[in-house]
C-alpha cells in the first residue's frame, strides 16, 4: 500500500513539477534581458494546446517517428519517478540505481536520435549526429562523477546515496562533492540542450541540436517530446537537489503536513537550481560545436578530481 502510494506521489510530482523549471529559466533570462517574458506557467498551456492538435508527419517517415515521442515520454517519466521528490515516505524495497537512471534516459535518447533521422531531412540528421556526439562526450564525466558520489555512500543505489548525503548534512562543503556538483551542472547543461551547448530558443536550423531532431514533429507528438524533455530536465535537477542539497528544513514536522512541506522545499530547491541554470544561460553564449569537447573535458576533470580524494592513501 505504502509502495503504491509512494509511486503515485512520485509520478504526480514529476508530471506536475516538470514544466516549472523551464518556465523559471525562461523568466530569469527574460528579466536579465529587461523583457517581461512569458508567464511562469506558459509551458503548461503550450503542452495542453499541443496535445489537442493532430500531428502532421512527413510522408518519408515510418513507425519510428510516431513511436519515439511515446518512448521518450515514458522513459523520462520513469527516470523522473526514480528520483525521490521526498524521502519521507520511501518504501523499504526501493528499486533504483544511479547507473540505471542514466541508462533509462539513454534509452529515450536512442529513440529521439533515431526519429530525427526518420524524415530524411538534413536538419534532422544534423541534430541527431550532434546529439549522439555530445552525449557520448559527457558520458565519462557523468559516470565518474556518479562513482564519486557512490564512493561517499558506498553504494550506487539511490536511497543509499540519499541517506548518506542526508547524513552529511551539507554535501557541498565537501571539496570533492563540490567538484562533482560542478561537473554534474555541466552534464546537465549538455544533456538538457541548454546554452552553452545548445540554444533551446534558436530559430536557425543550422545551429540547432535538440530542436533540429524534433523539427518534423508537431501537435501531440511535439507535446510528448517537449514534455519528455521537461521531465528529463526535472529528473536531472531532482538528482542535483536530492544528492547535493538534501537539507530538509521541516524534518521535525511529522505526518502528512510534513510530507507536503518537504515537497514544497523540494520545489524551492528545483527553482533555485533553475535560477542557476538560467543565470548561466543569461551570462554565456552558445559555444561553437567543436568547443563542446573542451566543456566535456572540463566536466570530466572535475569529476575525476572528485574521485581522487578516495584514492589518496590513508584517507
Amino acid at each position: 500500500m505504502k509502495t503504491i502510494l509512494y509511486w503515485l506521489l512520485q509520478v504526480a510530482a514529476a508530471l506536475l513539477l516538470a514544466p516549472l523549471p523551464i518556465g523559471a529559466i525562461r523568466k530569469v533570462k527574460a528579466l536579465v534581458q529587461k523583457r517581461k517574458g512569458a508567464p511562469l506557467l506558459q509551458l503548461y498551456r503550450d503542452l495542453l494546446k499541443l496535445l489537442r492538435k493532430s500531428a502532421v508527419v512527413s510522408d518519408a517517415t515510418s513507425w519510428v517517428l510516431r513511436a519515439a515521442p511515446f518512448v521518450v515520454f515514458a522513459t523520462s517519466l520513469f527516470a523522473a519517478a526514480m528520483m525521490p521528490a521526498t524521502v519521507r515516505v520511501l518504501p523499504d524495497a526501493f528499486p533504483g540505481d544511479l547507473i540505471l537512471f542514466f541508462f533509462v534516459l539513454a534509452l529515450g535518447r536512442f529513440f529521439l536520435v533515431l526519429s530525427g533521422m526518420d524524415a530524411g531531412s538534413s536538419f534532422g540528421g544534423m541534430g541527431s549526429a550532434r546529439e549522439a556526439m555530445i552525449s557520448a562526450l559527457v558520458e565519462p564525466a557523468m559516470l565518474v562523477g556518479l562513482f564519486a558520489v557512490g564512493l561517499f555512500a558506498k553504494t550506487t543505489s539511490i536511497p543509499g546515496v540519499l541517506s548518506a548525503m542526508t547524513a552529511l548534512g551539507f554535501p557541498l562543503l565537501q571539496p570533492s562533492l563540490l567538484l562533482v556538483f560542478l561537473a554534474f551542472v555541466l552534464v546537465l547543461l549538455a544533456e538538457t540542450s541548454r546554452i552553452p551547448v545548445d540554444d533551446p530558443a534558436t530559430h536557425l536550423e543550422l545551429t540547432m541540436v535538440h530542436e533540429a531532431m524534433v523539427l518534423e514533429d508537431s501537435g501531440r507528438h511535439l507535446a510528448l517530446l517537449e514534455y519528455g524533455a521537461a521531465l528529463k530536465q526535472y529528473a536531472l535537477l531532482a538528482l542535483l537537489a536530492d544528492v547535493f542539497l538534501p537539507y530538509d528544513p521541516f524534518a521535525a514536522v511529522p505526518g502528512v503536513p510534513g510530507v507536503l512541506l518537504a515537497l514544497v522545499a523540494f520545489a524551492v530547491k528545483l527553482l533555485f537550481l533553475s535560477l542557476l541554470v538560467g543565470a548561466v544561460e543569461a551570462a554565456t553564449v552558445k559555444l561553437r560545436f567543436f568547443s563542446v569537447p573542451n566543456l566535456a573535458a572540463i566536466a570530466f576533470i572535475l569529476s575525476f578530481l572528485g574521485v581522487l580524494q578516495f584514492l589518496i592513501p590513508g584517507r
Partner: protein
Amino acid sequence: MALAQTGLGFWISFSLYLSAAVLALLLSRCPRAANVASHAASMAGAVVGAAASLLHLLAGPGRLVLADLVGTVPQLELKVVVDDLSAYFLLALSVLVFCVSLYSVSYLAPYAGKRNLPLFDALYALFVLSMGLVFTAGHAVFFLIAWEIMSVLSYFLVVFESEREENVRAGTIYLVMTAVGTAFLLTGILTLYANTGTFDLGAAAGLSPGARTVVFLSFLVGFGIKAGVVPLHVWLPYAHPAAPANVSALMSGIMVKTALYGMLRFVLVGLGVPDGWWGGALLILGLVTALTGVSHAYVESDMKRLLAYSTIENVGILVTGLGVAFLALSAGRPALASLALAATLFHAFNHAMFKGALFLGVGSVHHATHTRNLEDLGGLVRRMPATAVLLVGAALAASAMPPFNGFASEWMTFQALFQSLLLEKSGLGLLYVLAAAALALAGALAAATFLKLLGVGLLGRPRTPAAAEAHEAPLPERISGGLLVAFCLVLGLVPGAALRVLERPVLGLTGFSPSAVSTGWLGLDPSALSTSPVASGTYSPLLVAGGVAAFLLAALAAVRLIGGRFLVRRYGTWDCGFETIDARMQYSAMGFSKSFQIIFRFLFRPTRERRAEGEHLYHPDSIAYTVKSVSPFEKFLYEPLVAFVNALSQKAKSTIQTGSLRRYLAYILFALLGGLVYFLVA
C-alpha cells in the same frame, strides 16, 4: 542417469555436425537439397547440444570424459572432456549455430549452381564441429589440432567468394596472423609441458615465476590474436566482413570467444591464482581495445566492417572484465572475482546473441540491395519492415539499453568496477576509475555507432535505386534473427536465469558462487557478493520494462483522452520552402560521424581530397570528396614489421639459400657432424 544422458547428448550433437558435413558432400549433385539437409542436420545437432549443455550446467556431473583414445602417435591423446566451463561455451555455440543454420537455409540458396555450395556447407559444418572440439579438448596437443582445424576451415570460409581480390587479401592476412598466434600458443603449451611433464589440461602447479610469466604472455598473444585484442586486431576487420554473413555471425559471435575460453582454461585454471600484474595488463589492454574498436566502428560506412570493429570493442569489454576478475583474485577477493567473471561470461553470451542477429540482419540487407555501403542505403524500414525491427532490437541490445541483455551484463561490469574501487586501497584505484570512464565512453560511442547504422541505413529516403527496390528477407532469415533478438530480450528481462546457468562455471573458476547476485529471477543485487559491508545498487529489469511500458500505455490513453482520435496528416518533409528536397540532401553516414573524426583527428589522421569540376569555384558542375584514414597500427607497427620480415627473407635467400648444390651438401655435412657431436656429448 543424468551422466549417461548428457554424455550421449554431446556425442549425438557432434555426430550430427559431422553428418551435416557428410550429407552435404553426398548430396553434392543436388546443391539445394544438400544445403537444406546439411543445415537441418546442424540445427538438430545444435538443439541436442544446447539441451545437453543446459542439463550439464544445471544438474550434470561436473566433469565428464567423453572419449580418451591413446593412439600410436606419442604424446597425442584424443581426449574429449566436458566440464562446466566447456558446457557453458557449448551452450552459446549451440544456440547461435541453431539460428545461423536456419538462416543459412535461405541465405545460401542463391549460391546454388553458381558456386560449390555443398563444399561450403561441409566446411561450415566442420567449422562448427571444430569449435565444439576446441571447447571440449582435454589434451593440449589435441586442443592445438582442433584450434588449427578451426582456423584453417574459417580461412576457407572467409575466401569463399574468392573472385573478389579484397577477400583473398583478407584471408591471407588472417592466415598469417593466425599462424603467428598458433606459434605463441605452442610456446605456451610447450613451456607448460616442460615444467609439468604432461599435456593434460588441468591445474599446473609448481611453475617458477619466470615460467609462469612466459606461459601467460604466450597465451595472451596467442589468444589475443584470435580475439582481436589491440594491437593484434588488424586482421579482424578484414576477415570477418569478407566471409558470407552466416560465417561472419559465427566468427564474430562465437569464434572470438574461443580465445576467452582459452584464457580461462589455460591461464586461470592452468596457472591458478594470477600474478598481480596480469590483471592490470589485461585491464589496460581491454580498455585500449574497447576504445580503439568503437572509434573505428563509429567512422566506418561499410556495414559489416562496422560490426567487425564493434566486435573488437566487445572483446575489449570482455578483456576488461577478465582483468578485473584477475585483479580481484590476486588480491584475494574471490567474491568480487565471481561478480566480474559472471559479468564477463554473461557478456560473452550476450554478444554472441546480438552480434549474431546484427550480422544476420545486415546480411539480409546486403542480399536485398547488393551493397554493404551505408551511403547507398536508406528507407529500408518500409521495404524490409521485419528485418528493420530485428535490427533495431539487436542494436538496442548492442548499445546496452535497458531492458536488453547487453545492459544487464554492462551493469554488472560497472558494479564490479565500482566494488573494486571501493575495496582498493592502493593507487590501483586510479586504473578502475579510468576503466569506468573508458567503458562509459565506449558504451556511448557504441550507441552512436548503431544509431548511425540504423538511422542512415534504415531510415529516411532510399539513396539508390537498389535500396528503393529492396525486398523483404525470406522467412527463415527473419525467424532466425527474430529468435536471437528474442533471446536478447528474455535474457535481459530475467538475468537471474542466466546467472543460474553461470553458477557452476564461475564457482569452478573462483570457488565462489555468483548466484547470490540474483534476487530470485527478478533482478540483480551484487551487494550479497561484496566482502566488505558494502551495499550496492540493484537492478530489476522486469520492473523497468513494466514501468516504462505502463507509462507508455498511459501516455497513449492520456493523449487519446485529451486530444481525441489519432488524426495524422501526411505531408512532405520540411524543405525551407524550396520544394526540391531529395534523397541526396540527407545526412550521410560519413557526415554522421564526421564531427567525431574531426575531434579525434590525432587518432584517425584523415587525409582529405576534394575534387571539383567546372569553371565556377563556388558552383562547380560536380564535386567529389573523399576521406581516407589509415589505421595507425597498420602504418606504424605492421608495415615496418612486414618490411623487416621481407628484407630478412631476401637476405636469407641471397646468403643461405643461394641455389648452389655444393653449399647445400656442405650444410648437410655440418648438420650431420653437429648431430654426432651432440649425441656423443649428451
